[in-house]
């Protein structure tokens, strides 16, 4: 399943890039998902990869699992929003540790060369996965092809309609920011979440315009191990320790998602498919975060505790 899933994700990235990069070149008002290569990105992507394993879902994974009625993810969602908001508020300090300007391959090279380079790296990665898994084994089925095609089309449609690629975690932070602002705990004009150039009413108006709360129900980039697709509403309570670990992971996941300039959707899918170099940096760092065995086992332990 993991082998087919990786190839399916690579196919999704390639198809989305095939649709998105020519659009970006043809319509200058469309924007790529450009994040700055930075210390913030390195730390954020690694922590995000680690914590999404513990929390058994990334940004959109938390959304749909909360909607499915999984208690832990219902608890994680508000903490993810809080973490995303605080991460946004701290982002300027993280960026002060070191950053370079965002690099967009379409801007630098044009759509054709950028797309060719993207496919070349994706094919190389796919061959690497096949060599690791064994050449004789099945590596793709129709469901993954159909899913990749559907998501690529929807991602391109998002770009055409909204003018910017698919994203998730900015909306989470906005929810918490609204509450903090209403409570008088946060001055939006003095912080990088909104920036001095954005009036306090701006994000509200933006949200009303439906411009930056793009949610998805599911995407294949979430957890490679541990409960992916197995989530069921639990009927037994987790221990206090399991709750504490899961909720803390959810908070850190939200915080790190802003440091990483996106999650599996905003940074990986949207970043790579629109030619942002930060998406290519995000992937190996987040993958490294998932390699911790204890983190990978956490969802399985939670699942066993539920059964």
């Amino acid at each position, binding site marked *: 399943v993991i082998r087919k899933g990786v190839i399916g994700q690579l196919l999704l990235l390639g198809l989305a890039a095939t649709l998105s990069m020519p*659009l970006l070149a*043809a*319509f200058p*008002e*469309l*924007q790529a*998902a*450009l*994040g700055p290569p930075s210390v913030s990105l390195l730390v954020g992507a690694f922590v995000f990869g680690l914590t999404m394993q513990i929390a058994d879902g990334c940004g959109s994974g938390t959304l749909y699992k909360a909607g499915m*009625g999984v*208690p832990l993810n*219902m*608890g994680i969602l*508000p903490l993810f929003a809080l973490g995303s908001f605080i991460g946004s508020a701290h*982002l*300027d300090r993280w*960026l002060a540790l070191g950053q370079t300007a965002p690099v967009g391959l379409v801007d630098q090279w044009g759509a054709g060369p950028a797309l060719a380079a993207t496919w070349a790296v994706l094919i190389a990665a796919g061959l690497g996965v096949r060599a690791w898994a064994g050449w004789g084994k099945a590596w793709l089925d129709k469901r993954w092809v159909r899913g990749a095609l559907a998501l690529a089309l929807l991602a391109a449609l998002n*770009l*055409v*309609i*909204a*003018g*910017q*690629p698919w*994203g*998730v*975690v*900015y909306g989470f932070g906005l929810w918490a920011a*609204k*509450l903090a602002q*209403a409570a008088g705990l946060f001055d939006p004009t003095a912080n*990088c979440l*909104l*920036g001095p150039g954005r009036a306090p*009413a*701006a*994000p*509200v*108006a*933006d*949200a*009303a*315009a439906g*411009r*930056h709360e793009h949610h998805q129900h599911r995407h294949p980039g979430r957890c490679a191990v541990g409960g992916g697709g197995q989530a069921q*509403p*639990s*009927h*037994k*309570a987790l221990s206090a320790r399991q709750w504490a670990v899961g909720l803390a992971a959810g908070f850190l996941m939200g915080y790190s*998602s*802003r440091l990483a*300039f*996106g999650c599996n959707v*905003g*940074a990986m899918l*949207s*970043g790579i498919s629109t030619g*942002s170099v*930060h998406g290519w940096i995000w992937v190996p760092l987040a993958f490294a975060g998932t390699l911790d065995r204890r983190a990978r086992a956490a969802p399985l332990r939670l699942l066993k505790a539920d059964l």
Partner: protein
Amino acid sequence: MTPRRVAPSFWLLLLAFVAWDLRHSAPLNLWREPPLLAAGSGQAPSGGHCSAPK
């Protein structure tokens, strides 16, 4: 907290937040709606994105 209490609390809080947001946010201005399709409109999107530092 038991699962039976988590689900009702979650949905109640979410509905309360949506209701509060609808009540306190600026009303929609239909005369300042963005174009239906950003592509070809000549207008760059003004909303935030998670990949952007601001």
